[in-house]
């Protein structure tokens, strides 16, 4: 299971060793500020918006169609925006760094 570093909107680095599930669920489990995951991970609430570190965008991949529909109306959207609930954590993502957008 991968190690993931979340950089919160306040600038704090939260390192989650052996993160499980999705970028959203691992953040909620570890009380990462700025990620709420209100809808439980079905891509409805957009409370898990992150910017994927440039070095990791290829491995994480682009947003899906439904996800893009939410992201295009969110504040702070960048090329590397993803909703954390749609990023499954796999061993290939060991070392991943994301910046939490928050609200």
């Amino acid at each position, binding site marked *: 299971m991968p190690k993931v570093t979340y950089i919160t909107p306040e600038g704090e680095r939260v390192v989650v060793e052996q993160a499980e599930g999705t970028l959203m669920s691992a953040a909620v489990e570890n009380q990462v500020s700025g990620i*709420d995951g*209100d*809808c*439980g*991970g*079905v*891509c*409805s*609430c957009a409370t898990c918006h992150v910017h994927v570190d440039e070095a990791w965008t290829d491995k994480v991949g682009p947003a*899906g169609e*439904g*996800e893009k*529909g*939410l992201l295009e*109306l969110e504040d702070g959207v960048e090329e590397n925006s993803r909703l954390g609930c*749609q990023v499954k954590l796999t061993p290939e993502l060991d070392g991943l760094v994301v910046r939490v957008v928050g609200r």
Partner: protein
Amino acid sequence: MPEHADPFSHARAEHGWLNVDCDGENVPLILRLKDVRKTCKDTSTFSSDLPPLIVLHSEAHVRDVRQLPIECDPPDHTDYRALVQPLFDRAKNDPDYMESIRSLVDEMVRTAIGKGELDAVRGFALPMQSRALTRLLRMPESEADVWIGWGVHVFHDRDDGGGEGFLLQSYTGGQFRRAEENPGDDFFSYLNQVEFRGRKLTFEEKQGFANVTFAGGRDTVINTVGSIFAYLGDHPEALDFLREDEARILTACEEFVRYVSPLTAIARKCPHATRLLDEQDVPAGGRVALCWPSANRDESVFDQPHDVKLDRSPNPHIGFGFGPHNCLGAPHARLIIRSLLRSLCDRVERVELIKAVPKVEKESSFTRQVGYESVLVRMIPRAAGD
């Protein structure tokens, strides 16, 4: 739940809007998911500064206060909402509070199992929502009896569709006066004490917060819960399906909210003349409305939108609204529904549906079901050790 038909599919495909006559005013309903979302975000073209017309039909006969924070625009909306958001967010970030609601719901399910036949709307959902609300607002649980007496919706729960006049304002006004004399840690005492931009809230502002709290979050939860019981009665395999995977409690909650969409529309006012969807002219001061149930059946977004898929994911529904005005009570509603599904999975083998009477809303250009008037059910308990 086969009755929950979608009356908007033709208009959604053809135009993306549907006109409805609201007491002589023509109001176009916006029907497609993407268009509704965009409208929600554009608060300068589509304003919420429209008391008492945030719903399709004027509520001037039941209230004379501006509901807060919903009936105003940013930046006022942002600052008003920030005053009460922490209270409502306890339903997602306060473990003790969350456990208290889970226990309440579980206790009510256990009691309901022992009752044999019961109406899941007025005999279960109404008291459950009311008792949960006392905990959210830190009020004595006995106060739930007063709220239960108002019925499913305090503004319109009589046979003739009417309500009890200014009953709600009279009640909440009394509570603010009570809280002045005997302050505690309840919702009313909090609003008496909190500062907004360096001053206390006016009586009208406090009444506005209280008004939407009681008018907005009761029938919506109750209609969704009643519909869940009707669905489980129609689909005896559903509880077993949920029991197979804990994550399905979360997905099923969102799917029921999408499918039932317990609020038909919320209005916006156009301060300036606007051309809607390149087709429909809205005059300055005219209204448009965001049609949540239509957006939630948008065929371009949802695969088989008229089916209930308890493990639907992704499920980008907007059953709790979208944008800055999204439902303040959504965490509480989710907590209640998830707690209910979990308790039913733990304690109930199957739900037997005896009789369901749909609740129907009629407008000039459409008729739609919004939950049920009554859902007579019997809950069959799981055998010990299951």
